[in-house]
């Protein structure tokens, strides 16, 4: 592979992976903050108000880092992927610009109001500010997912004489079925991160023996939301997304499942190591005929394997794709189990004393992040070798004017900068959590 191409790909992959650690939490927390605010308003309960303020502060820190790491994402469309932008800007410029106009302004304006304006607003007004932040963050997610969905499954475009694509139908772009399934799956994934983080912080307080009143609220809200969204993540959203891949990107499906040979009654590989040069999967544990059923709802359905497609249309890193996909699905399954057991214990009134379960909730914190990252890697590596599926190859999209050396220099720069940001983030979040929900933030002197 051309080293400039590799570096530009890594540049985007690294910055977007780091960036998405923050929006997934803000999008996940936003509806939970609305829930806390609603209960607070209904019961006129100061504890819930305080809990909402606490999570709004966590939200705020994540939002700031999300914005400063989000600006590079938008810039990179021009700086590192200028040939792609010239080709596709006439279509995806729509969704990217709409994100700015409809989502960012809404979210940032009302977040400021929610964080700093409680004294100047009525309780109802403050609740509306929370709703506006929720709306803004979820709209923002939609426009980004719609952009990616267009790259996965281009619709509503026409090719113009200069070779670029231009918008021909706005509604096809916005109502792209791929966008809606992917959005539902993605937002449910973000909500899982929000729910696990909330439950995990709750478990931390109970195990610590401090702020226990809040710990119980966080666990209750986190576990109930977690159960709902971990199930939704599998069905219908994950299932719907999977069937779209089967229909429109059959070669991607074959690579995700490491299915080298076509055939009826294809098995589902639970675990095993794909050996691409030998075109086989080593040491597999399988469920017979399951893949046929999941993809086409018939046990004997024919599923096309990689041998049905020319190798130059195969995703260029099949093992990475296979493992990302299996990590995502495996973790998703474990999440359902964790939330089922927690919800059962909660219902029986035993969860708050079950230290072993609290430890599991506490330690589960990083895994939703890993699952979300693995899911996005599945989507993006699965789309390869295409940048826009069937229309433009990734190798044709990067900035030819920006040399590999310059790309590497700024990639290293971002790695350094993001390390600093990461330390800063951990420092700020740790401080908020240790100070606890009851502490009015000390503005310093």
């Amino acid at each position, binding site marked *: 592979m051309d080293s400039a191409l590799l570096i530009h790909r890594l540049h985007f992959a690294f910055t977007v992976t780091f960036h998405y650690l923050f929006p997934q939490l803000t999008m996940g927390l936003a509806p939970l903050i609305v829930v806390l605010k609603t209960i607070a308003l209904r019961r006129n309960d100061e504890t819930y108000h305080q809990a909402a303020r606490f999570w709004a502060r966590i939200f705020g820190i994540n939002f*700031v*880092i999300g*914005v*400063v790491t989000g*600006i*590079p994402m*938008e*810039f990179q*469309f*021009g*700086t*590192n992927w*200028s*040939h792609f*932008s*010239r080709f*596709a*800007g*006439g279509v995806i*410029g*729509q969704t*990217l*610009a*709409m994100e*700015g*106009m*409809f989502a*960012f*302004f809404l979210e940032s*304006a*009302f977040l*400021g*109001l929610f*964080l*700093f*304006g409680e*004294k*100047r607003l009525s309780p109802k007004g403050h609740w509306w500010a929370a709703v506006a932040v929720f709306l803004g963050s979820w709209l923002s997610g939609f426009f980004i997912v719609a952009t990616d969905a267009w790259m996965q499954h281009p619709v509503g475009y*026409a090719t*113009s004489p200069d070779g670029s694509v*231009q*918008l*021909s139908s*706005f509604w096809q772009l916005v109502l792209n079925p791929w966008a809606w399934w992917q959005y539902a799956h993605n937002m449910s994934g973000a909500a899982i991160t929000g729910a696990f983080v909330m439950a995990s912080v709750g478990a931390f307080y109970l195990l610590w023996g401090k702020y226990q009143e809040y710990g119980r609220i966080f666990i209750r809200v986190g576990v109930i939301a977690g159960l709902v969204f971990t199930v939704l993540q599998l069905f219908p959203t994950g299932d719907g997304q999977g069937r779209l891949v089967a229909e429109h990107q059959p070669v991607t499906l074959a690579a995700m499942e490491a299915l080298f040979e076509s055939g009826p009654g294809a098995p589902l590989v639970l675990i095993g190591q794909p050996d691409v040069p030998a075109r086989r999967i080593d040491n597999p544990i399988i469920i017979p005929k399951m893949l046929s059923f999941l993809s086409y709802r018939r046990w004997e359905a024919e599923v096309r394997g990689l041998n049905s497609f020319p190798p130059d249309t195969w995703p260029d890193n099949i093992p990475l794709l296979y493992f990302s996909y299996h990590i995502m699905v495996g973790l998703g399954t474990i999440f359902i189990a964790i939330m089922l057991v927690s919800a059962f214990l909660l219902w029986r009134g035993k969860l708050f004393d079950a230290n072993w379960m609290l430890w599991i909730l506490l330690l589960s914190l990083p895994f939703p992040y890993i699952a979300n990252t693995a899911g996005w890697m599945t989507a993006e590596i699965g789309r390869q070798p295409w940048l826009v599926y069937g229309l433009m190859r990734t190798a044709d999209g990067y900035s*030819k*004017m*920006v040399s590999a050396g310059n790309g590497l220099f*700024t990639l290293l*720069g971002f790695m350094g*900068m993001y390390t*600093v*940001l990461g330390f*800063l983030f951990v*420092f*700020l979040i740790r401080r908020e959590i240790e100070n606890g929900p009851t502490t*009015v*933030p000390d*503005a*310093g*002197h």
Partner: protein
Amino acid sequence: METVWFIIVALMIAAYVVLDGFDLGAGIIYLIVGKTGDERRKVLRSIGPVWDGNEVWLLAAGGTLYFAYPQLYASAFSGFYLPLMMVLWLLMLRGIGIELRVHVDNPVWRGFFDVIFSISSALLAIFFGAALGNVIRGVPLGPDGYFFEALWTNFRLGPHPGILDWYTVMAGVVALVTLAAHGALYVTLKTDGEVNQRSRRMATAICPLQLALTLVSLVATWFVRPSIKENYLAYPVGFLIPAIVFGSLILMLLWTRQGKEFSAFLSSCVYITGMLVGAVFALYPVVLPASTDPAYNLTIHNSAAGHHGLTVGLVWWTLGMILTIGYFVYIYRTFRGKVQLEGGGY
């Protein structure tokens, strides 16, 4: 249609510069007008609830530019690769400075983050000015519509200039001084006591310098790009723009002296908008001039998105803008008045 979007994009960029300009400006003068911890907190408080929201305008303006002129976005952003990356890093450093300062108690670390915040604000102002300078002067576009510019060559103009030459450095200094005054007037407006006094004195001191630099930059621009006069001669109504620029500057000086804080700040907004509008008025219909051969100029015609997309965009953009203006009016009304040091936040 391409012209409509030219105006929209120019106005959004102007909105970004006016809005983020005052919090960048507050950063530039931060160390001078705030001597004690409490005074510095006051300055931070005045921009605390809005700086991040103002930065969102950069995203929105960038998104709109990308939408309307994808070809321009592709060329300019890849051509200005290195300085743009530095802008990104500076924006991050600045955010780190603002947010971390609040959360540490050690005075040495406070001082450290204060300096980071102030220096990155000043450098950003210079970078943005230099970027505008590059756009006016022209860049070495090739026949394929792409270019790559070194950070500097020999600091002289010519077909193969660097990002920095004497003209763009001058533009950077103009931006630094302009935003310093803009920030000083904002801080004057939002604070009381010593900080208010110092900021006002600062603005009063900067104003004449700003007037002189504006004149110098006008003459220099005339020298660098003699064709700027063409649009003005073709549409004499354009001469209103320099009239507004100088008028607002003089009013700014006058009102600052008289202590009319709001009017003075407003005239600074008008001045900045006027400077930017004057520049793009001269460029139109070119959006990125080529220093190599005028035939390679990027214009609104050869860099715009398709007609259907632009038409559809006008519908949602108008809707989005109405909503946005609504939020911003509401937010600034909610936070109106001088900042207080009690309560939560910065």
